[in-house]
């Protein structure tokens, strides 16, 4: 940028941040920024999971058995961890529909892109719904951030913090998906290109990615 174009102050700050990239060739600016954001989010979630590891390692009271805590009675039979398994499958399915939406976006098939994004958002909303059910069930059983009837007091704090923060990400993702889906339908990206669908997809796959780690470390460990 030529010296004469530079602006000082807040306007200059905005201009500098929105100037074009140098290092990441062939990567749209928005996509680069999404990756930077996801990198920072990786640090947040890893810090949460590390905090959970620390309190679980140092707890002298027995840790509640997730397999039993998250069991559901279906058709008169207690099935361990079944709700969490269904939530996992719902989120993976939504990742699949999102990947297809990105593909059809680049083909400029607006109708398929729109409906695949709506399907993704619907599955995301289903996931949040099941999480609300799970939270209500645990709260009714007396699980609190400072204690619970099943064992180590740190269980509640870890559970509400980690799944709460992840659920917040899913909820924001559902809103983000709906906004972009309707803009796709309206034809906002006909001239600008459909990279935005890929960027939205990156966020959504990341939410699924975080769940993979939560599923392994919190529910299966």
């Amino acid at each position, binding site marked *: 940028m030529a010296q004469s174009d530079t602006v000082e102050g807040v306007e200059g700050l905005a201009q500098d941040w929105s100037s074009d990239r140098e290092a990441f060739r062939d990567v749209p600016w928005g996509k680069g920024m999404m990756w930077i954001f996801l990198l920072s989010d990786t640090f947040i979630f890893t810090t949460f999971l590390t905090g959970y590891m620390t309190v679980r390692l140092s707890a002298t009271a027995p840790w509640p058995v997730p397999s039993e805590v998250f069991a559901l009675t279906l058709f008169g039979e207690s099935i361990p961890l079944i709700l969490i398994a269904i939530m996992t499958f719902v989120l993976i399915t939504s990742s699949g529909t999102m990947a297809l939406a990105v593909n059809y976006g680049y083909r400029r098939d607006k109708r398929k892109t729109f409906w695949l994004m709506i399907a993704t958002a619907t599955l995301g909303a289903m996931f949040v719904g099941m999480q609300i059910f799970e939270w209500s069930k645990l709260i009714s059983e007396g699980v609190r951030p400072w204690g619970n009837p099943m064992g180590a007091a740190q269980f509640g704090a870890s559970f509400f913090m980690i799944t709460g923060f992840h659920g917040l990400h899913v909820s924001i993702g559902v809103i983000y998906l709906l906004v972009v889906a309707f803009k796709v339908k309206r034809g906002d990206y006909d001239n600008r290109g459909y990279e935005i669908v*890929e960027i939205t997809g990156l966020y959504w796959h990341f939410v699924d990615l975080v769940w993979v780690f939560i599923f392994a470390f919190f529910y299966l460990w």
Partner: protein
Amino acid sequence: MSQSQAQPSGVVYEGGQQHPLGVYIRIWILLFVLSTLSYMVDYFHVEGYLRWTLILVFMVLKAGFIVAIFMHMMWERMVLVTAVLLPPLALLVLIGIMAIEGDFTYDMRDIWMGQDTTLQPLPPVHH
């Protein structure tokens, strides 16, 4: 972007990540299978080192496929791959020191808070 597959005519590409649909479908099915397998680990009560190993293997495979294929990392230039994947390695240091700290805190609680049930109770004090 390099495009090895022949694409149907009339399809517009604009330099973004575009790959054959079959790749996504195959990975999708694979993620389903891996999730089912990790659920089976819990369902059939696999315990001990085999349990931790299986959980970690399935987790790493799922995470790897999501990042590599769904997030297109395997088709990106190395500058982006390294910028995103290398910084999180610093987190291994945090995980390492907090594992040591967690064990240490457990031992201290064992010694000072009387949680160790293997210790003999102290003899009663008579006045």
